[in-house]
């Protein structure tokens, strides 16, 4: 479709969408002009993903009109949207782990490589390699997706969305729902380059909770709140504070990471690593963690920090060195062992390892600590409800009720449930594996507050995070890992926070 500058490529008017018990979208209208990147921000549960899913044909709107290149249209299915030139990178990881990268990239669009009903794999993999090159990911397209780390998977998903370029004609619309939440800065750079480079052919909607990124990449920004668009502004005129105020309804606290609340930690050691090592993942890692201390681990992919956290979670037992929890040397060969010594693990893969999606909020919150609820071998259901309700209140989880399935909560709210689970289990040590991934700024603040409160009561925390900024802002102590060993260690008490640059120095 030829699109003159002012005429919108995509226009939505009065879009309505309700789910059982939730009105997710209220009369939403939004425009996207040629070659434009539109930022979309809003709290968890504001309705961003729902809107994106409607645009990509996954959901059908209850009401409202969608115009593509001036013509009213509807997206019957994801495939249909794809045909009409709308592609999407989904918020949750959406690669099929049992298929190869190449198969994933062209899943659903193999037709172009099919002759007489037979798929020409050589051709498919060849062009898959080209797609991967676009996003500068250097993996063999014949690799199984399961073998890839999160960031790479995310890049592959981007590559997948970009295949539109090849098989759809005319001006494209590409929807990016929190594509950066699992990416490290270098990869984010690549992503942004690609987006800018493609502006000639495509318009983008970019959803993210990292407001600075949104400001950096977008031309125009829509702010959503409780299912409605509450503001539209030019990126040039906006700044983080305004966006934040529009989203949350109140101003951004000066002290984002609650640094004043950061109390000096206690003297007693709750966790000690002594020359800990596992395979070629990491080796002779030693440090002490004290009650009330937040220890941030910085490091790029492959630095070994991911494996280290998995070890502390009981998913990848160590094979060298000593691991001492509360004075006792332990080997955590299953998560159960970890829970037994009061470790709580907030995993990266929220929907897989964090929550049983098809179980109620209440059941998830009490899962690790069911023992406490057992009276004469029977679970005290009343007590369970009460507990769950108090946590839902305290963490402001947006849910129809404690009996609702976690499945239907928005990403951010799901994460709050995971946190509630461990806080309720009275974990003495929390392993926070990218705890604020996918959380909106408001929710983030709440999480920080919770973490501070917990540490105030003597809970120790090990933190690996998406952004250095967060690691630094939150931690008492920061250690940096590279290629499996600890390369740097620094205190990070208020006032004396290290700066990002020299940390990066030790990371790469």
């Amino acid at each position: 479709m030829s699109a003159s500058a002012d005429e919108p490529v995509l226009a939505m008017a009065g879009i309505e969408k309700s789910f059982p018990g939730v009105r997710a979208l209220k009369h939403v209208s939004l425009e996207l002009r040629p070659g434009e990147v539109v930022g979309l921000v809003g709290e968890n549960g504001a309705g961003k993903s729902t809107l994106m899913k409607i645009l990509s044909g996954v959901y059908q709107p209850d009401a409202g009109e969608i115009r593509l290149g001036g013509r009213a249209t509807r997206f019957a299915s994801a495939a249909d949207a794809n045909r009409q030139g709308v592609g999407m990178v989904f918020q949750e990881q959406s690669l099929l782990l049992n298929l190869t990268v190449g198969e994933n990239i062209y899943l659903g669009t193999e037709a172009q490589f099919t002759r007489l009903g037979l798929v020409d794999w050589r051709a498919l993999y060849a062009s898959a390699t080209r797609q991967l090159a676009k996003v500068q990911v250097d993996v063999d397209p014949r690799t199984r997706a399961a073998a890839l780390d999160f960031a790479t998977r995310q890049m592959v998903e981007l590559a997948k969305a970009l295949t539109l370029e090849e098989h759809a004609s005319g001006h494209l619309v590409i929807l990016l729902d929190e594509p950066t939440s699992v990416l490290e800065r270098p990869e984010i750079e690549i992503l942004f380059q690609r987006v800018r480079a493609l502006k000639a052919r495509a318009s983008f909607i970019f959803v993210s909770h990292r407001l600075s990124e949104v400001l950096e990449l977008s031309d125009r920004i829509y702010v959503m709140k409780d299912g409605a668009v509450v503001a539209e502004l030019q990126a040039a005129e906006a700044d983080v504070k305004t966006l934040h105020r529009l989203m949350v309804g109140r101003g951004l606290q000066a002290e984002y990471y609650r640094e004043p609340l950061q109390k000096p930690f206690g003297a007693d050691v709750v966790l000690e690593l002594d020359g800990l090592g596992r395979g070629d993942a990491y080796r002779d890692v030693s440090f002490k963690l004290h009650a009330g201390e937040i220890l941030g681990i910085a490091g790029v992919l492959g630095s070994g920090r991911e494996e280290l956290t998995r070890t502390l979670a009981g998913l990848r037992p160590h094979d060298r060195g000593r691991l001492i929890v509360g004075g006792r040397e332990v080997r955590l060969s299953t998560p159960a062992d970890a829970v037994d010594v009061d470790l709580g693990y907030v995993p990266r893969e929220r929907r897989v390892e964090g929550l049983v999606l098809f179980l109620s909020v209440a059941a998830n919150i009490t899962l690790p600590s069911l023992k406490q609820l057992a009276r004469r071998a029977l679970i005290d259901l009343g007590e369970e409800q009460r507990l769950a309700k108090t946590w839902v209140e305290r963490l402001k989880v947006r849910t129809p009720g404690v009996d609702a399935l976690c499945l239907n909560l928005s990403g951010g709210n799901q994460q709050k449930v995971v946190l509630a689970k461990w806080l309720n289990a009275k974990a003495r040590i929390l392993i926070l594996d990218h705890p604020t991934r996918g959380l909106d700024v408001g929710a983030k603040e709440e999480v920080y507050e919770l973490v501070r409160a917990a540490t105030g009561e003597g809970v120790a925390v090990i933190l690996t995070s998406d952004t250095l900024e967060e690691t630094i802002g939150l931690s008492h102590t920061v250690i940096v890992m590279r290629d499996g060993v600890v390369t740097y260690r620094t205190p990070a008490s208020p006032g004396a926070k290290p700066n990002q640059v020299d940390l990066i120095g030790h990371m790469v």
Partner: protein
Amino acid sequence: MTTQALGADKKARSARWALRRRFAAWAPVAVLALLCVIIALINPNFLSAGNFVRIAQAAMIPLVLGLGATFVILMGSIDLSVEGVLSLSAVILSLLVLNGANSNDFGPLAILPVLLVGAAVGFVNGVVHVGLKTPSFMTTLGTWFIGVGVANALLGGTAVRINDPFIRGLAIERFLGLPWGVWLALACLAVAFVIQNNTRLGRYVYALGGGEELAALSGIPVARVRVLTFTLAGVFYAIGGILAAAQLGLGNSLIGNGRLFSTITAVVVGGTALSGGEGSVLQTLVGVLIVAVLNNGMVLADVPPSYQIGVQGLMIIAAVALSIDRNVMRIVK
């Protein structure tokens, strides 16, 4: 700098994966070989050419049935209608070809309607399962009963002798030392292999097994794939029915008895996961052979009848335990 670091890391990881998977794929074969060695040691006759032919004969029907079942299982569903379709098609075939009950004599032509019947039952499985959103387990259990019921009603319980030389030839006439039926089964394997690896349907079956919602997000026509797969399975079962009828020289609604569990067992022994997404028709071939060799060896090794089922059970556990790759199959259901 970093990107290279990443690249290197990923290369290492994927290399490890590739190795591991290759091992996982070959383990069942090793088990099969081991099994053969053991039996051969107990009774050298096992290695006789004649016996290989007989094992092939014993394996041809389970193989064809297993191929159909594999696709359904890869998709994460289950198909219990095996015996129903098999009996129905055997009965219909016996009534259409030269037989001892009526004057029909359509010869090879009779195969077409039989295949159509198989396809039809499979199609119904799929449509009901998708349309009414009933679990495939129940849907196909239902069609199993219905299939046997119809077969019964057609024959009123009697057995019909098949005199058609062509059909009987499948079991009796040989080509390069193997009965034509075996060649037919191998042809089915080839077709199944191509469908699995070189068609979109094949990929989509894996995709559904790997994660149905995600597959849908990628715009895969989930419903159509399900229906097609069940239909395909139905056709394979019908072929199984034809071979069974050829082998026993008769059509009867009991002819499918006991085929269901042996089929699924073979598929699972081959290493295809009942949870879907993992496995292949070649693995099913191995699984079928393992089971066939076991049964054959059971007699050759003089295991007393009362102990046979038990011993077979233990052997199967051993076979699967040896061939499952614990790292690939983290969760086992």
